[in-house]
């Protein structure tokens, strides 16, 4: 899919397959060999769970950043270990359970169909892979394109989280506004709100939070989507975000209209 859309990776790594080619892409035995030979500046890890720890630690120790982890169902202790190692090496992890990221026409790291994304100036950050594509479609249907769409992953223990991703979008000259797909559980939306309230983020932020009707105390598909009591519920998050100056929509299909009326803080 990456090659079909002109977003060809520079190298692949499969121990024991070094020296071969896959669709013209050279395959190396180790990450170090790939880094030494090609202009590598990011890594996408797509290995079975049994080889995940080994593959990610190898990429971390090679100093590649960012590393995207698409793997779902990563045990808590392993996520903690990998993120701890990444922090020690100054490496950014995206995921686990991330669909990847796409800058339409420029970059693709993950399982996102480029044809579904239109280039533009709206940054999208999502805790759900499928809903990121759906929101990009909704924006495109309204004549709006996306600068970068980033799936941060649905787990509760992740690398680059929503506030950190929003700060990147704030600094991105190609992004004029930030659209968020949030869910119940974790404190990510609340910490994002604090960044808007304190002025660390000045671009318009539009948030849709799924799970208003989801009963509390249940873990749904995403490991991070669970609430216990009032804190972390969709209603709680919406209230806090609105108080912080974030534009909150009740339906994601209302995002284009919200963008049309949004203006940067202080403008």
């Amino acid at each position, binding site marked *: 899919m990456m090659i079909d859309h002109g977003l060809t990776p520079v190298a692949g790594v499969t121990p024991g397959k070094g020296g071969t080619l896959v669709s013209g892409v050279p395959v190396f035995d180790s990450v170090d060999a790939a880094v030494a030979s090609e202009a590598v500046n990011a890594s996408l890890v797509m290995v079975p769970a049994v080889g995940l720890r080994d593959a990610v630690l190898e990429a971390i120790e090679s100093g590649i950043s960012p590393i995207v982890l698409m793997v779902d169902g990563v045990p808590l202790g392993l996520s903690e270990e990998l993120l701890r190692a990444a922090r020690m090496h100054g490496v950014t992890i995206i995921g686990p359970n991330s669909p990847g990221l796409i800058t339409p026409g420029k970059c693709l790291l993950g399982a996102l169909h480029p044809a579904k994304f239109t280039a533009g100036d709206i940054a999208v950050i999502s805790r759900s892979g499928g809903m990121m594509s759906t929101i990009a479609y909704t924006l495109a249907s309204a004549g709006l394109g996306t600068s970068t769409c980033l799936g941060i992953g649905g787990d509760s223990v992740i690398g680059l989280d929503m506030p950190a991703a929003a700060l990147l979008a704030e600094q991105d000259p190609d992004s004029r506004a930030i659209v968020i797909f949030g869910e119940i559980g974790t404190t990510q939306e609340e910490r994002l709100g604090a960044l808007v309230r304190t002025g660390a983020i000045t671009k318009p932020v539009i948030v849709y939070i799924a799970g208003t009707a989801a009963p509390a105390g249940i*873990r749904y598909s995403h490991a991070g989507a669970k609430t216990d009591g009032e804190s972390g519920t969709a209603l709680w998050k919406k209230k806090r975000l609105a108080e912080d100056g974030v534009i909150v929509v009740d339906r994601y299909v209302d995002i284009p209209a919200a963008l049309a009326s949004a203006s940067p803080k202080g403008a």
Partner: protein
Amino acid sequence: MARLLEHQVKDILQGEGFIIPARRLCHTPDEVRAACVELGAPVYVKAQVLAGDRAAGGGVRRCESPDDAAATAQALLGSQVQGLTVDSLLVESATVGQWEGYASVALEENPPRRVLRFSRTGGAGFDPSQATVQLDLVDAVEAHRVRRALVAAGTPSEELVRLTDALVRLAQAAERWCAYTLELNPIVLTDDGVVPLDAKADLDDYSKALIPDPSYMDHEEKDPRELAARVYQAGDHRGSLRYVQLIPESEGFGASRVASHSVGGGESMVVLDALDSVGLHPTNYCDTSGSPSAAKVATAATLVAGQSHISGLLFSTCIANQPLSVTAEGLLEGWRTVGWTGPTVVRFAGNQADQARDMVRQWAAEVGAPVRVVGEETDEWAAAQLLADLLDERRGSTSGSPHEFSRGRANSRSCAGRHGRPWSIRCVDDDRSRPNARRGCHAR
């Protein structure tokens, strides 16, 4: 996450070297009376429900005699504590300590890390953010770091060794059992060491295979459909199948009760919101995403459409990468298996959506089912409204039973379930494409 009951957490803690009061798990007043005689009064009789403050809800009571304990059990068993039905009680010897405090290990965000907390005050309503010791566990817990934090918090010298021992054990237990949270509140300090009087744990269900005893997580799916989904998923790792029963079938049929089946974890949440917005009540949550096999989707579809208390069904996808013709194949196989022909809205968006929509339209024409088939141009709220309208139309055109559509059972089998009940939910096996899958029935 899997939350454990108090008696389970205490069994784990005892195995981790904690001093736990003598206790018995009971299910009848006679068992409670006998336990009180054996342990000696006074005892505490504690409802085993996954509720926050059980004491405030009347679920924890001190009993001064066996008769008192039996009467308390009679009152508690079958009653509701914080909205949850009590079906078991923990009878525990009363313990006296020097003070009542708090200890926990919890996973925190920004950055993700475990934090060890301790306070010499605790009990119901205690705010963990006020704990006097708050130690980030950046690596394996080290006794000297715990001691340093305790000393800095003004811990008396004579308590230092006992507290350090307990807190190190707690941190090690949280790691070994892959806990998001392991909380002891309150704790008391005795001459022999720290004794937890109450305990809670949330374990990571992705780590089930890694913890010392995975059976502690088995209680999570009490509902037979949830259990069937989990068992199937355990044998077929391609894609995911997640099923949650939101309204038990025992609550009976409802005109506004509808089934929900989606592709995508986020999409599934959106659909719950959309159904709620038009006054429909989803009886379940079901997500089959990540390119599952047709057999897996079919199993999910039998669980969803086989519910006896639904009046309609909404199936919806996000803009999915997975080949939706495979999804449609499984969906229709599942519906045929349980004979579903009720009011249905199907919303396919993404890869092979046209093909998938055609397959459903053809099936609907063949069986004469009232089905609306739409695509991404119809958002989830509009799709939910279509279902509400369809149900209204059906109600307007029929005056009799809401079950006027047929739901055959010809293909279902029966076998003994885990809880000894006959199960009649049918899973769909595709042994050719699922070599490692477990076979047999998984359902009620």
